């Protein structure tokens, strides 16, 4: 967890202001994952486990090289392997490093009710602060990438931290340090975006991947993990990368209009009842008259 607590620009479930409001930071960080040069060696998976202190999990074999079906509470990044048959009949093995995308507009943070359990730093990293996590799992509902994972023992949720602790002291994330091919890059968002666009152009003009492009989804106002894809028009081919990810509308509705409506209704109700009592007073029981109206 980062020491730079004053550089927090967003806090989950928080009543009041944030310490990083009005902060002027020079840059936001970004991890670039070039799926076109990944060889699926999984050094990044191992590095992540080593840095964060997790032991290697048992592999779930599903006829591919993939370690397990999806990330886990103790397995924060995962190479997703998918075979793809191209139009000309040739086969491609698509390999995409799956982990938290560190959205600029994070759905997990929006959904979380616990004060301070999820924070967003000025550098763009979205970090879980598990000491404040209450284990409700709303973040699981808020995330469009299926990333937060629940630990039944800890009763809390975990995900990739973009090595916020390493970044805070000027190191690159563990996965980037371990990558042997250099397909993982780390730097500022503008730098990484430019590098990605250059590579995508090279893929389009030189390598014949006419639909190559950069994945930096606008639906979540961009992400601090971006991909270069051979086929940017079909991200789902890369192990279920969503085509147009955004915070689910139900979460927006719940935390937006429904919240206002509910709060007004509760306060209005209390005010209304107080007004009713002042205007009409209590109902009083009447003494029973000699003829109480019954007929025997």
């Amino acid at each position, binding site marked *: 967890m980062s020491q730079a607590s004053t550089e927090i620009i967003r806090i989950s479930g928080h009543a009041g202001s944030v310490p990083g409001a009005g902060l002027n930071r020079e840059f936001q960080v970004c991890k670039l994952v070039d799926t076109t040069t990944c060889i699926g060696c999984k050094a990044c998976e191992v590095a992540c486990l080593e840095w964060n202190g997790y032991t290697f999990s048992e592999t779930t074999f599903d006829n591919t090289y993939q370690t397990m079906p999806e990330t886990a509470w103790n397995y924060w990044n995962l190479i997703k392997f998918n075979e793809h048959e191209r139009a000309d009949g040739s086969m491609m093995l698509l390999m995409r490093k799956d982990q938290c995308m560190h959205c600029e507009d994070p759905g997990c943070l929006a959904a979380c009710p616990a*004060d301070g359990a999820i924070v967003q730093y000025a550098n763009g990293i979205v970090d879980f602060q598990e000491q404040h996590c209450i284990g409700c799992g709303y973040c699981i509902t808020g995330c469009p990438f299926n990333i937060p994972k629940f630990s039944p023992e800890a009763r809390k949720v975990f995900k990739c931290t973009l090595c916020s602790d390493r970044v805070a002291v000027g190191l690159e994330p563990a996965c980037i340090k371990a990558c042997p091919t250099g397909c993982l890059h780390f730097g500022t968002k503008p730098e990484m975006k430019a590098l990605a666009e250059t590579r995508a152009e090279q893929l389009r003009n030189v390598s014949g991947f006419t639909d190559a492009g950069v994945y930096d989804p606008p639906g979540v106002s961009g992400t601090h993990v971006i991909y270069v894809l051979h086929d940017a028009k079909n991200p789902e081919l890369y192990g279920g990368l969503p085509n147009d990810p955004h915070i689910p509308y139900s979460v927006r509705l719940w935390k937006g209009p429904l919240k206002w409506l509910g709060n007004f209704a509760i306060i209005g109700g209390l005010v209304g009842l107080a007004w009713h009592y002042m205007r009409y007073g209590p109902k009083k029981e009447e003494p029973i008259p000699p003829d109480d109206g019954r007929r025997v």
Partner: protein
Amino acid sequence: MIPRYSLGERANHWLGSLAYIYLLMTGLAFWSPYLYWMAAVVGGASTAQFWHPWFGLIFTVSLFWTFANWRRDMSIDDNDRAWAKAMPEYIQNRDDKLPPVGRFNYGQKLFFWGMLYSVILLLLSGVVLWYTETLPWSLRYVRYAAILIHASVALVTIGLFLIHVYMSTILEEGSFSAMVHGYVTRAWAWTFHRTWYYEVTGRSRPEK
């Protein structure tokens, strides 16, 4: 004094109310950051997240027991529908302009059925939220529906709760002690539930 609520009915009512108050405090804490402190008062936010579903089950059982006991008393008939048309008179405390009511009036019946249907929806959506991490990604739409249903229906029950507490403590004197001791005065019964007063005091109903 006339007996109105048996010991079982009263005990069940208070069990359900205590469960509801816990649900209300923890639920409001999860609902709004400005009310997050409410969870601290009842044992902390993590604890609240653990116990909220269990108290939900207790509340459900209490309401189902009430349903088993009172479903006949709570059935809605033509007298209720006539009463419903004159409800503005009731709200403005002109009770003399309303037809006489039995053990429970239309407002109480609405409260009963409203809470019963709400608790069923809260239970179903609540179970989805309780084990939210076990639902696969392909069924995420069930999670999306559950968070909306759970929050909206909870708000409905809060509204019903506010009216219920207001009416039974401040507005209609004698109601609160009825639920504690089980007895009401003859005058209370004659004023507020006249048809029930006739039945309970052993004489036949008045001619129509």
